[in-house]
């Protein structure tokens, strides 16, 4: 049976939004602990190249994802050492991580530029995938799509229903108070940064192993930065990350459908390619113009260094 156009659009939107969800949820946890890691673009690039290389050599995409996650965590660790141990400016350290990660991934990935991977088979959810229209759209995906949903639920539960999540948020809101009642602020922030790095790494792995599946320099193409914008858009709430990610996913696939549908739009392809970036700007403006939404929702110590002895 040929899936309907609506079903295909929903399907493609979800696929395009998946790496954004995974990376943005990771960054959300990091930011909830009070750390602003602007290195997501670099981490995703490293995750993508590591996952691709390992998948090429082992033929196992699952190992690829793990490699992507590991690479992301190493990148997170580098950031954490600079920003948490050495108390370097978080904005500058994040920028450094992005420049470094984009450069290093291009360097490592050079020999893999002409390699193509077989596409990974989808896993159809038994029963549910037979539902007309929605079945194809929601239940005939690759594993990481379901993972992104589980991750959202898991993180929402962790942040708002678990004890450790409460501690994490306390560290982000009032690190001095959390420290004085005996929590190790630096260690908790390390954990949050490593988790965020691991997730951004998986987000990158999704791009190179599942989505395209190939590696080219610059293939992350700003998705790391869009994930950062998504956290602001979501006003630091997990459920809204999903809404935002699918909005962007829809934006990204517009080009594909306009070209594939045979519509004769007299618009250069570059204008359609610019849509997701323009949308990011518009969304940021819409969310930020009410200063109170940002001030009330963002973790109070976001971006500020913490020194246990001060």
């Amino acid at each position, binding site marked *: 049976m040929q899936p309907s156009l609506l079903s295909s659009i929903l399907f493609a939107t979800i696929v395009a939004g998946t790496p954004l969800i995974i990376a943005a949820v990771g960054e959300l946890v990091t930011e909830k602990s009070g750390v602003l890691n602007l290195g997501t673009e670099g981490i995703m690039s490293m995750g993508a190249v590591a996952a691709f290389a390992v998948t090429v050599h082992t033929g196992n995409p699952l190992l690829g994802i793990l490699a992507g996650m590991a690479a992301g965590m190493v990148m997170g660790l580098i950031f954490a050492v600079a920003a948490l141990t050495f108390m370097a400016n978080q904005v500058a350290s994040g920028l450094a991580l992005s420049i470094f990660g984009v450069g290093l991934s291009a360097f490592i990935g050079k020999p893999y530029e002409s390699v193509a991977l077989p596409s990974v088979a989808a896993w159809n959810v038994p029963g549910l995938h037979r539902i007309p229209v929605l079945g194809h759209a929601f239940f005939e995906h690759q594993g990481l799509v379901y993972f992104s949903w589980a991750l959202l639920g898991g993180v929402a539960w962790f942040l708002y229903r678990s004890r450790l999540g409460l501690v994490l948020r306390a560290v982000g809101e009032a690190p001095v108070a959390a420290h004085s009642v005996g929590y190790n602020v630096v260690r908790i922030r390390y954990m949050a940064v490593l988790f965020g790095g691991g997730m951004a790494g998986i987000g990158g792995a999704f791009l190179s192993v599942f989505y395209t599946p190939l590696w080219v320099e610059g293939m992350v193409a700003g998705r790391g930065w869009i994930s950062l914008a998504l956290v602001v858009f979501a006003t630091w709430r997990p459920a809204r990350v999903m809404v935002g990610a699918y909005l962007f996913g829809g934006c990204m696939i517009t080009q594909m459908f306009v070209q594939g549908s045979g519509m004769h739009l007299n618009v250069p392809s*570059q204008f359609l390619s610019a849509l997701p970036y323009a949308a990011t700007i518009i969304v940021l403006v819409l969310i930020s113009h009410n200063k109170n939404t940002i001030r009330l929702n963002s973790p109070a110590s976001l971006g500020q260094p913490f020194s246990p002895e001060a």
Partner: protein
Amino acid sequence: MWLKFEQRPEPSRLMRYLSPLLAVGLMVASGMLLFHLLGKSPVEGFKVFFLNPIQDKYGVAELFLKATPLILCAVGLSVGFRGNIWNIGAEGQLLIGALAGGGLALHFHDSSSLLLLPAMIIAGALGGMFWAAIPAWLRTRFNANEILTSLMLVYIAELIVSWLVHGPWMDPDGFNFPQTRLFQAKATMPILVAGTRLNAGLLIAVGALIAGWIFMNRSFMGYQMKVAGQAENAGRYAGFSARRTVWIGMLVGGAMAGIAGVAEIAGPVGQITEHISPGYGFAAMIVAFVGRLDPVGIFFSGLLMALLYLGGEQAQQYLALPYSISKVFQGLLLFFLLCSDVFITHRIRWKK
């Protein structure tokens, strides 16, 4: 924890100057380690990367040529960074500046006026300012984070360049290559040293360094930027306008990046292509930080960063390593700098 940082009673002046040198040393050391891991001789790698590029007059000229756009962008960015204005979209401002200046050159292709080049430079500055004004306006009017908006505008600028060189501005006699026609002589920078590609763009960069030094150290506005960056509340109590800080920081950065864009298309590139800049706008952030946001420092760090670009070309040619090794070195340098800066305010204490 095996080591602990202990706050110094007051920041160390010595470390302020030593920390960039420490960072360079660590970068070179880790670079040599990287060469070793890649199965190349570290000494040979060091020679190819850091010494080969500047062993003759042509090489030194290339060094200054590459440093020109880096210094221009970095001086502009440092004005904003001093006031905590995080314009990270210099790359896009550079491209739009190049389009504005290059558009003029294409439109007046037959002109023999001596004013063409100065007009291109002014157009480039205005183009860069326009592109920087967008995040400035969004920040002051809608409170939108300038880091993300200025960066998104880089991608949009790249797509505009791509559209123009594939479409309306494509050279009609260019065999369908995505590039404009070559600029005529009056629209290109005069060469400074015969036999090299070094051009008058360097003089503009030096002028920008001097103007930047005066602005930062001798003007009231420069002082306001510094106060706004270091102690936001103090600046507010003193009645310094936060909006004005944003505008000045962004516009100065945009103007300089735009001029850098013109210096490239009217200099070594000679036309508009999709490859006007190998990431100068991003590398300039590193130049600004490594140069301590100070014009004198920026001059030297600009030369260093230019050397990393040239070294990457040499490594590609003689060691068969990808060109992107330049960016690896650049990223490492910034990291080491940010980390070694802790010693300005802190001392290390080892714990048993």
